[in-house]
């Protein structure tokens, strides 16, 4: 008890000193994040008339409703597919010898460091009607007419999954690496079949990483713009595109702001749910 008391005084002093050092960053964030966000919030309830008309409009109009629904569907599908694909990769990174896993890591990072627009256009080249994939499939006789790979959910999902993969692999890898391999061995020798070892030991112990990575990808996917805009069509419009159209083409700032705030509110709600479920301290 006494040592804890003695420790509290210098710690508060330390905090104060740290706050001083960090104040430029805080000021920067305040000026470029809090202030514009507040003005945006203000706009969403004042433009064109005072009140919650923009929100009402967004949530009641069937077209906007479809965009909202579509946004959540794409984000959900992308998160699930990324998790399914990323989990084995993260596991491999943990169990492979360092020499090999370092190469794998480099390849994953390299794809992250390549320009996003360039990568998305690359998919466009591959996916279009006369693109490499369609021509190859027709060449081997699997299909007669080109299958539509862009302008629909499939294209958006593939393109976004590819971009999100590293963001799920890294948190998963760190949570899997923290598991002692002897725990899996003891589960096996206790009689657990491989699938039981996975579902009863490995999966629960890596839940932390699954949630952290899943949340990150889901939230990023909710607000994604370039990939759905290029690979999707009008029927797969997502919220970010809606905001862009409202603000850029229609100069409807009020509705755009309201849409942005719905996105932010959903993100914060998800984060709160996650923080409550797993404890805030565990987020890395």
């Amino acid at each position: 008890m006494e040592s804890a008391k003695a420790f509290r005084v210098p710690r508060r002093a330390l905090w104060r000193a740290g706050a001083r050092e960090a104040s430029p960053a805080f000021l920067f964030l305040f000026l470029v994040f809090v202030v514009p966000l507040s003005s945006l919030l203000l706009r969403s309830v004042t433009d064109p008339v005072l009140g919650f008309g923009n929100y009402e409009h967004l949530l009641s109009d069937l077209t906007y409703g479809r965009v909202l629904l579509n946004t959540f569907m794409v984000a959900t599908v992308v998160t699930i597919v990324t998790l399914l694909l990323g989990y084995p990769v993260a596991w491999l990174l943990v169990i492979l010898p360092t020499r090999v896993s370092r190469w794998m890591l480099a390849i994953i990072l390299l794809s992250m460091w390549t320009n996003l627009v360039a990568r998305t256009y690359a998919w466009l080249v591959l996916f279009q009607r006369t693109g490499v994939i369609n021509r190859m499939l027709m060449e081997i006789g699997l299909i007669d007419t080109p299958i539509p790979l862009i302008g629909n959910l499939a294209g958006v999902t593939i393109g976004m999954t590819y971009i999100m993969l590293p963001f799920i692999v890294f948190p998963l890898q760190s949570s899997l690496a923290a598991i002692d391999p002897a725990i899996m061995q003891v589960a096996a020798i206790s009689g657990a079949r491989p699938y039981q070892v996975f579902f009863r030991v490995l999966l629960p112990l890596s839940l932390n990483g699954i949630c952290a990575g899943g949340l990150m990808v889901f939230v990023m996917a909710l607000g994604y713009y370039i990939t759905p805009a290029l690979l999707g069509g009008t029927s797969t419009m997502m919220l970010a595109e809606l905001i862009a159209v409202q603000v850029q083409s229609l100069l409807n700032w009020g509705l755009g702001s309201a849409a942005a705030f719905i996105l932010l509110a959903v993100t914060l709600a998800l984060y709160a749910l996650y923080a409550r479920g797993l404890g805030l301290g565990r987020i890395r």
Partner: protein
Amino acid sequence: MSGRAPCVVSLRNLVKRFGATTAVDNVSLDVGEGEFLTFLGSSGSGKTTTLFIVAGFEDPTSGDVLVDGVSILDVPPHLRNIGMVFQRYTLFPHLSVFENVAFPLSVRRKPKAEIEAAVTDVLRLVRLETYADRRPNQLSGGQQQRVALARALVYRPRFLLMDEPLAALDKRLREEIQGEIRRIHQETGVTVLYVTHDQEEALRLSDRIAVFSHGRIEQIGTGSDLYNAPRSAFVGGFIGNSNFISCTVAEGGNDRCAIRMPSGQICAIRGSSPMATGQLVSLMIRPERIGLSTTASQAGPDCAIKVRICEATFLGESVSYKVTTEWGQSLAIREITGKSQDVPLNSGVDAYARWHSADTHIFAT
């Protein structure tokens, strides 16, 4: 092991190579029903690798592992029906003590009532029945290892593997849990293969001990076999304390022979194996087998060498001496107090160290 007793586990010429290094080098042994057999050796001696081959976590390069006479090399670990306790704490951190112990039965899809009864029984056996609802991180290291032991026993495996389960515990706790392990072994009659680097732990727990060195079994036998009749200098040095003196054979012979001490003095010894005259040998004597006397005449007929007392430490039931020989080697001597008529000798005094030829061991070098 006599042929009549049934063998639970048999290792047949096990070899395990990792690249150029041979971790396990032609290991063969039989473990009898209900036996407590310990692999004793320093780290890197191949004992843990051998255990992991039995568990199925490593495949041998060659050789075979038989359980009740049937090879289990093609059987995956989860079907081997072996219990195992690891060196590190391996309780499932997301499960309670009860759920941890129930895990082996639950993956076998046993009925709930049966699981409940078995877990309660085995938790009582390790005396942790009141801890069933705790999480592993609420337990001490010793309690965690007892839960791990309960988890390894709950499904009544054919035999139990223990890989240095007490290595992470402090000395007092270690002795306490050694007692628990011995009691549980006696109560359950389970066959145990135990790995340790601690000779005292091996002597305290085991029916038989296999001394490992460089992937090979140097000697296998009861604790007193290994102590009283070591077959190599390594075993003699590993189990208990010992003095080694480099000598040459002065006169070879089958039963009795004579060796020349570094001082030139000739001593008769009991020859364990035929030796050629002139051969270099190492003479081993346990500290408690050497007596001290002040005059040569008291020394008796066997062998006595002149020494100078360097250090005398009174330890209650015994006096521990450090003496220097004429050729400058330091020897350890332990005399039981009250047994000898002499009062404890002071340091700096010249004396005679004597021993019976039957108490010496001789090893070729």
